[in-house]
């Protein structure tokens, strides 16, 4: 039977698990760059950039999986952790962007400006990042009260656009092998399909019987 109540220590375990890749990633990259180890291979800055980008998508998947998972299992308490996972997704996106700007492009403004003006996949990625900032800023209970539930929900539907932009950004950035972006596209499509199907069902149920 599904646990009706949240298992003890679940929240703490989730936070620890969400932190772990960040800590391993930072430690591995620092060791590679400073000491010449090869935890991230021969090009740790590029590999680390990709690593944090991958984890951003994984945390987005986890965030968007909460609602279907709750619906399927009936574990209502899962909903309590959605905000936290969303904020972790934002944190990984920041690590991805910082690796790009500080370590990869090394704050070369000409190149940063050129990338943003000329490279479609950078534009798509930056748009996703820009859209995620208001979501991170309005994640508190106080922000929900201030905005009102309906408006807050409307704003936070942007997460679907962000997920799609994230996959498009990834897809455009790979040279030839699209296995990775295709996998995320399928997972996000499934998570979206669940919501669409549920919305349709709810509407049919709400409609008066003819």
């Amino acid at each position, binding site marked *: 039977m599904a646990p009706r109540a949240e298992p003890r220590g679940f929240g703490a375990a989730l936070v620890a698990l969400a932190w772990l890749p960040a800590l391993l990633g930072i430690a591995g990259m620092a060791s590679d760059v400073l000491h010449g180890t090869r935890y991230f*291979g021969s090009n740790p800055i590029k590999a680390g950039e990709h690593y944090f980008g991958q984890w951003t998508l994984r945390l987005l998947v986890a965030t968007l999986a909460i609602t279907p998972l709750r619906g399927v299992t009936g574990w209502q308490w899962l909903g309590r952790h959605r905000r936290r996972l969303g904020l972790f997704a934002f944190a990984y996106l920041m690590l991805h962007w910082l690796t790009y700007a500080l370590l990869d492009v090394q704050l070369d403004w000409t190149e940063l400006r050129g990338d943003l003006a000329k490279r479609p996949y950078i534009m798509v990625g930056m748009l996703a990042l820009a859209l995620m900032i208001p979501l991170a800023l309005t994640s508190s209970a106080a922000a929900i009260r201030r905005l009102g539930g309906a408006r807050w929900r409307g704003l936070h539907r942007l997460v679907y656009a962000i997920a799609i932009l994230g996959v498009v950004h990834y897809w455009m950035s790979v040279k030839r092998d699209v296995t990775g972006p295709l996998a995320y596209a399928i997972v996000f499509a499934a998570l979206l399909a669940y919501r669409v199907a549920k919305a349709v069902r709810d509407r049919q149920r709400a409609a008066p019987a003819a």
Partner: protein
Amino acid sequence: MSSRPKDDVRSSEITPEAHYLDRRRFLAAAGGFGAALLAVRGATADTLPAPGKPYGLQPDDKPTPWDDVTGYNNFYEFGTDKADPKANAQAFRTRPWTVKVDGLVAKPADYALEDFLKPSAVEDRIYRHRCVEAWSMVVPWRGIPLADVLKRAQPSPKAKYVEFTTLLDPKQMPGQRSRTIDWPYTEGLRLDEAMHPLAFLATGVYGRTLPNQNGAPLRLVVPWKYGFKGCKSIVRIRLTETQPKTAWNQIASNEYGFYANVNPGVDHPRWSQASERRIGEFLKRKTLMFNGYADQVASLYQGMDLAKNY
């Protein structure tokens, strides 16, 4: 007097096997959080002596460590990740090996690799290597000048281009089982480029036999061009009158031109080519025109618009 060699290691300094195995187990566990973490390699061979005559090196150019040269490779026949070729190419058989030289030549022939190489003196040359993906290395190659084998085949006056073809063998090359590229991989040069004394056929690296992941047993090296021009595991060299179709150019001609000369002024559509990351270094370097070989090769392209002929 004892004369203990400098690299002698006291037994107390040797990591006990149990710790060593623990570390492996830890890394394997950590690997679940990112395949990149599994790519751990020792720094043992980093200080190998790099034999060879330097060609076009800048004052601060140092040979890239063996582990990077042989562990960070683009060789899609063995997988698309940089660590895949080393992982997947170890069982690849490079003997017996036949190289076909044909097309517009007076002396077409199928050579056993040994006979193909025998007439030329083997040389060690240290070249700069610039990948189209904006990373670079310095590689001590071993091999023979490409012009040697072309001259022996006696190109006909009609021959204008040289086409190179990689082995097609999906049984041995797992990457060829998916259609990332229209296999077999082909590359090409204009005949005058191919006859240039810098154009090289590598059979080794660091004075050793070429590792499979680097394109064994025979791999093209054209140091003033992006690395993808360097056709690997070559089975055929064909001289043609018309420009041959080349693998990456067929996939995305706006991103990968036929010439593919290193040029900091012509961006790849998805990134700038003005600078590069030398593997093993943190700060980026400025990319040099023709990868630093402008004095030797610029004359090949006189009067050409290199922004158009990228």
